[in-house]
């Protein structure tokens, strides 16, 4: 047990101890940001994941204290403490945990005065609004809107905010009206740790489609290698037989080796050649049977 000075309030001591307990109890722990997550969404995420992921909101200073106190590899996580963070702890492997946390993200509108992480584009097209004061509010955001056929219409596609720019309140309001939800809000994984190994989102994002393609490529390479080196296995036996047969058939036909099995092919080939030449000739040069 760590020594605690008498002046520290008991709730802080308890909070630090709780974090330390979680970190010791679960094999996979980590830090996730939750800035901008409405408390209702946060509560439902916590509820939905309750059986698989322990989530605790903690003050950054206390989390730092806990990590210091735990020491060792845990101190590596200090680099990821920023903004508003929560501690996550789970028995799921880091990849599954990451996926669960990513799945908590839902499309959301931008808030006034926040820095937009993305370019926000408003597409040209009709809105659901009838003519009215809303037109002014949309125009105030720099969106070229007008009335057409009894509806407010965005006339040109425009980029209203660029990544890294502050979202002006009037722009946030217009985007809200148009139901543009350009960002995903939820638990934002900063880092996860298992057995002292720190995984960042770059390590954790798995493209399953790519993995599937990799497996196809690997399997294809194996098949190619086996067949091209004539390594006979149950899987390649049939292919190799067919290859050998086709080799023989090609050779027999191309070299006009008169084997009964390929005679029809050889005849058809000769006939095709005759037709190919006949097609280049004028009518007078052709027999009656080729003219029709």
């Amino acid at each position: 047990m760590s020594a605690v000075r008498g002046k520290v309030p008991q709730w802080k001591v308890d909070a630090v101890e709780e974090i330390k307990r979680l970190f010791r109890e679960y094999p996979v722990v980590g830090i996730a940001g939750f800035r901008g997550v409405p408390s209702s969404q946060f509560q439902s995420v916590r509820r939905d994941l309750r059986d698989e992921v322990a989530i605790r909101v903690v003050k950054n200073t206390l989390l730092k204290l806990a990590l210091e106190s735990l020491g060792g590899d845990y101190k590596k996580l200090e680099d990821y403490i920023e903004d508003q963070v929560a501690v996550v702890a789970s028995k799921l492997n880091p990849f599954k945990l990451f996926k669960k946390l990513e799945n908590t993200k839902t499309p959301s509108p931008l808030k006034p005065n926040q820095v937009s992480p993305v370019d926000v584009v408003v597409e040209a097209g009709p809105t659901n609004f009838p003519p009215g004061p809303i037109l002014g509010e949309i125009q105030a955001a720099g969106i070229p809107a007008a009335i057409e056929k009894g509806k407010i219409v965005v006339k040109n596609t425009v980029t209203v905010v660029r990544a890294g720019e502050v979202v002006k309140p009037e722009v946030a309001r217009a985007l809200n009206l148009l139901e543009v939800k350009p960002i995903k809000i939820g638990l934002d994984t900063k880092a996860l740790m298992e057995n002292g190994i720190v995984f960042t989102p770059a390590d954790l994002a798995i493209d399953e489609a790519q993995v599937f393609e990799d497996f196809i490529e690997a399997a294809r390479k194996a098949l190619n290698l086996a067949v091209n080196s004539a390594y006979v296995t149950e899987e390649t036996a049939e292919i190799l037989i067919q290859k050998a047969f086709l080799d023989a058939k090609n050779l027999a036909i191309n070299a006009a080796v008169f084997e009964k099995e390929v005679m029809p092919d050889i005849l058809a080939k000769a006939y095709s050649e005759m037709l190919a030449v006949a097609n280049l000739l004028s009518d007078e040069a052709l027999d009656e049977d080729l003219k029709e």
Partner: protein
Amino acid sequence: MEYVYAALLLHAAGKEITEENVKAVLEAAGIEVNEARVKALVAALEGVDIEEAVSKAAFAAPAVAAAPAA
């Protein structure tokens, strides 16, 4: 393919494809005839329905024709 052309020529002319006939045609074309190949040809053609084999090549024509015409 000379030997095959000779056989098909005889067939088209309604003649029997015998070793003798094939040889005669080949020689008329100035070809030095290999007896073994003539024998092999005639033997391999025994029981083969030339009309049918040939019609397969012709058959493919209309269907395939459309695409490669381009």
